[in-house]
């Protein structure tokens, strides 16, 4: 079984990220026995739902799902309604409410728009939380079509040691950019990167768990943003330029010869 899960995950690392939903759906048809582990291990672009009670939007993931219903972090209610859907304990719900407010501010400061949601659940020695953010951008109105989507999925496990906390964070950012111009036709850059981090922080009145988590998420997400920038706009471009050389081979050879000439004449001057 583990072998099959490894193969499924390896497959998801190779198939085109622009078709994640179809790929996952195909996988679930091939190996229905792996449905639960696949749904929790494979990140998908986040879907947005509307909470009619609080009139706010929230994000859907496996952590706020119970059967076919999803729980809103604002109203704490399931849609479609469930008699006894899974809910965080009263204590944890207080943490969850504050977390949603704090990350709402975080989202506004870094994303200036978009939707965020935080879901918490109890663990034996602490709790876990997932922090989700989704932002889309469509600049097509201002010129040639250029669309982008950013999805953040941060999952943190908190080991509560009273005066301190041990935090294990796994973060995935999915980034999708598409353009359609006469000069370059259809260009799509799609994918995701995942990173992990583990830290200890002191816990106090002024630094409760949620503040420590916030710091960790901010650092992690900013690092991921920088790495994505390097890979998307640097690495893939470099590889593409290796496939076709802009400069003709004979010109490159002339330059190399000239460099050698200069190098050896400098060498001669130094020796004389």
């Amino acid at each position, binding site marked *: 079984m583990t072998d099959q899960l490894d193969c499924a995950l390896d497959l998801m690392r190779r198939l085109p990220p622009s078709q994640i939903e179809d790929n996952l759906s195909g996988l679930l048809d091939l190996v229905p026995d792996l449905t639960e582990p696949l749904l929790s291990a494979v990140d998908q672009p986040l879907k947005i739902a509307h909470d009619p009670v609080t009139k706010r939007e929230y994000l859907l993931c496996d952590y706020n799902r119970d059967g076919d219903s999803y729980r809103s972090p604002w109203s704490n209610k399931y849609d479609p309604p469930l008699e006894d859907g899974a809910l965080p304990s009263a204590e944890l719900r207080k943490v969850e409410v504050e977390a949603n407010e704090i990350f709402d501010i975080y989202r506004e400061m870094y*994303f200036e728009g978009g939707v965020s949601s935080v879901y918490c659940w109890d663990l034996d020695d602490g709790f876990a939380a997932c922090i989700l953010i989704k932002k889309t951008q469509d600049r097509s109105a201002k010129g040639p079509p250029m669309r982008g989507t950013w999805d953040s999925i941060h999952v943190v496990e908190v080991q509560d040691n009273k005066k301190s906390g041990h935090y294990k964070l796994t973060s995935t950012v999915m980034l999708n950019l598409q353009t359609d111009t006469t000069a370059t036709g*259809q260009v799509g850059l799609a994918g995701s990167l995942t990173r992990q981090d583990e830290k200890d922080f002191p816990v106090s009145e002024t630094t409760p768990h949620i503040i420590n988590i916030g710091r960790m998420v*901010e650092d992690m997400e900013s690092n991921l943003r920088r790495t994505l920038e390097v890979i998307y706009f640097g690495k*893939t471009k470099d*590889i*593409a330029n290796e496939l076709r050389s802009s400069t003709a081979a004979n010109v490159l050879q002339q330059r190399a010869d000239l460099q050698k000439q200069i190098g050896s004449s400098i060498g001669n001057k130094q020796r004389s």
Partner: protein
Amino acid sequence: MSEPTNEELITIATNFLLNAPPGEFMEVVTDVRALLPNESLLNESAGRTFREYNTEQMIFVDAPGGGHKVLISKYGEVSDGEYLDPKGNQVIQFDHIKQEVTGKRAIGSGETDQSQEALRAAFEKEAFDYCGQHYPHGTTTVYAKDGKIIVALSSARFNPHNFWNGRWRSVWTYNPSNGECVGHFRIVVHYYEDGNVQLNTDTTQKITVPSGAPDAVASAALKAIAKAEQTFQSSMEVNYNTMGETTYKALRRALPITKVKIDWNKIRTYRISGLGQKQ
């Protein structure tokens, strides 16, 4: 929810195989085989799928007897497993599953358009020159088919050790009757260290070549092709800059407008002061 039929499973598996990134086909085959309820499900269609993948990707092989490489492509396919090598004046026999050349034979009558041979040969000379100048890891094969000259070019770099692979394919079809030359080029790049990032481009361009003697036409055509592909490459540079500078920044800022990281000691007071009240 009904269980998928064997046919549906084969369709899913085949689709996965055909979407394997350049250089990773066998890895995808291994994964898919392990996930099928029954490995033998793919046996019947394997030959077709391997062939579809290889010819779509336009993989290249060493031409037997010659000092050049030749493409395995749909344009040169004379039958399942047999591909034209116009430069070597032969037909190559290729095993798609083993991915190796198994033999060669003479070109049969009707398998290539002899009436266009002078033009095709002129294009081939120019194309080989062009390929050598701009595609250090590429191969080109020039066909004469249905009255048209087809210049197919495939260039690939495989670096699994550093978790990346990529392929460029361009196909230019020249129509002697109206001087129109249509090019279709695609890039696929896959980067997969701690993630999965893919670049996909798909472009079609049209150029016109003035008529004349075969040598003159071929020279003018390849000059125009070179210019079109060069322009595409510089436009990609511009496109990358715009995506990175404009769209990316509009998705998530590097820092908040305050130009410093969040003060987590104070963030709970932001609510009171009115910052971040927007939804």
